[in-house]
């Protein structure tokens, strides 16, 4: 068996893998709201700030 068969099948499997990932992403609703996640991402700090009293780690951040 020639190397090209192996390479071709690998490349197609990889491509189809990505395609399935795309379909799953659409199905889970990732493309329905393209604004909120970009804001939500920035909230990590604020959430930590609330626990200020309990952890030492957060003090470095603030």
């Amino acid at each position, binding site marked *: 068996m020639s190397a090209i068969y192996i390479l071709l099948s690998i490349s197609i499997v990889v491509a189809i893998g990505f395609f399935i990932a795309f379909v799953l992403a659409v199905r889970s609703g990732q493309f329905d709201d393209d604004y*909120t996640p970009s804001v939500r991402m920035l909230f990590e700090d604020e959430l930590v700030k609330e626990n200020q009293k309990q952890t030492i780690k957060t003090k470095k951040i603030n």
Partner: protein
Amino acid sequence: MEHQNCFHCGDNCDSEQIKYDDKLFCCNGCKTVYEIFSENDLTCYYDLQASPGSAPKEIQGKYDFLGQENIIEKLTEFNDGRIQIATLYIPHIHCSSCIWILENLNKLNKNITSSQVNFGKKTVRVTYNSEKSSLQEVVLLLSTIGYEPYISLDDFKTGKEDINRSLIYKLGVAGFAFGNVMFLSFPEYFKGGEFWLEQYKHLFRWLMFAFSLPVVFYAGRDYFTSAYKGLRAGILNIDVPIALGLVVLFVRSTVEIVLNLGAGFFDSLTGLVFFLLLGRFFQQRTYSFLSFERDYKSYFPIAITKISNGIEAPIQVYDIEKGDRLLIRNEELIPVDGILINGRAKIDYSFVTGESDPINKTSGDKLFAGGKQTTGVIEMEALKSVEQSYLTQLWSNDVFSKNKEDGFTTLTNTISKRFTIAVLIIAFVSTSYWLFTDSSKAMNVFTAVLIIVCPCAIALSAPFTLGNLLRIFGKLKFYLKNASVIEQLAAIDTIIFDKTGTITSNKQSSATYDGAVLSTSEGIQLKNTLRGSNHPLSRTLYDILDENNIITLNHFEEHLGKGIESEHQNDTMKIGSASFVGYDQDTSILNTTVHITSNDQYKGKYTFFNSYRKGLSKLFNNLKTDYDLVILSGDNAGEMENLEKLLPSKTKLIFNQKPNDKLEYIKYHQSEGAKILMIGDGLNDAGALAQSNVGIAISENVNVFSPACDAILDATKFNQLYKYIKASKQAIKIIKWSFVLSFFYNIIGLYFAVTGQLEPVIAAILMPLSSISIVAFTTLATNLIGRKLE
């Protein structure tokens, strides 16, 4: 005077100031929200954005209906007895603080497991434990922190809606196949004849075939169905030549690889579908926070309180029967026509008529559905059911079930008819020529012609031009329902305006004084008396009058719905309606007037005039050369004189039009061939907006509901209307020019096709090249228009 603003909601707190925690609040509501947040360590809310909140409204008893099982069932999207998930629409969502606080609801109520905001749609999806909590509790919590959800009759009916994501899937499939096929066909572009390329070309070709299958049978499916529908209706729409091209591409390519004649055109085929879908995707993006399909159901509440045998119980609006006694609380909407039994009603009909001043009603008066009670609690008796009420009956007109786009032939479809005929003629002529000279090439030429002229570039011109302009308009606060509205807007020849709320602004009006001159002390007393009243007319008059010294009144009393009286240093003053001040010679019934007496002596009256939107005169003068202008008003003719002065003389002024009259007026003129643009605002214009070729709703605040229409225009941009119409016309010109451009590419392609020299590589270059240059041209040209608009 320096204004101080509320820490929570940012409103001016001149009239009332509450200090708490070194911060200033405009009302107790705002202070309470702050208290809740600070107790729960949620003050970050104020760090993200200054003054992001809104003052919580009075909600006592308003959400009692949420205790009913059948209503909960309709409003929740998941319910297994222990856990419920509900998506609530919250109009106030407007900044990152809102997202933050709403996604941290679990800090305020432990029974809420999670909450997720969709900013674009202004919704929050709340998951909560229904054993320990309830939907009602969640809604009440949201209301107390100033995020009152909007629950309307519309939510009750739609239930769970599936989101249509098929276009994204199709685009994904086509893009995926396009990329892979391009890779696989790459070796074929170089006719090297190298040994290993020759050896594997069959494998490569069959792989390409495999990739193109989902593209033709899944991604491109819409083009076949649309072409079929078009042909059945006897229309040669743009999808006919596209579908023809796709079929020929697929069949010829398959035949070529089966008979080992060549590599086929799978690269062009998948590329074509990908570009076409891209155009469709570009055009289809809409404004998720706006709805263009609203009818009365979006305005009406789900349930209302019914009183039977002295017991108050929530009842579904659809279950209201004639004779039912209903309790309408402050800020609640009247769902059915009825008679006022008890209480003092002050009804705001702005939903219905666009008129902002509330109207006073006394018991025995008729109340119409759609009005909003603005002071206290009233009792009414229903005279009709919801569907039979005066306002809601308008929606039984069949104009609301018609789809406007059906009757409209787009520019693309007009051209595609001639295009398809021309293409078929060229194909048959060149084939018959080759049949006589070299019959072996005849079939080759026939298919090549159909492949190369496949109108990808033509099909892309309109979506990209209109799609881009749609986006530009959106930035300029002119929101269109879809791209075909631009084409329709470019074609109109008559513009009809509603008066109240459309060409007049809701906020300010002007007034003229008529009567005896007021002395300085009387002037001061007048201003100071008005200062204490919250009536809209008092506020307006207060703003108009000159600044005066602030004095302390000895006595001040407001007689709701009648007027105000005050006393200052033994001088009494009465301000209000003619009957209140005891003046019985009021002759002008048409205008809104406020009368004044000082020490029981009649002084004079202020007559209020509508204040017209800025730039109204200029707009009408710009429009008058190209369009027939009409004012179609539901009001009386009181403003006629003013309008005649303000507007160009050929403007038609028609008054006393009921909602249905407006609709009929438009229908009549359409039957005479007029293309009508209707501009309105209230629900009373809904019929006219639906009947017209293009209906634009003017909105003071686009987040507040506006009736079903084709476009929503922000009121501040009203004077820009002429420019927007002009830009739409220019867009049509751009589309025509890009048609010229794509014909040019077609002629080059046709040269290769007719002479029998079309190689896959030429098609593979020409097709994307023409598409991309069309996209570039239209995008650049529309951006140029957009820049001129700003």
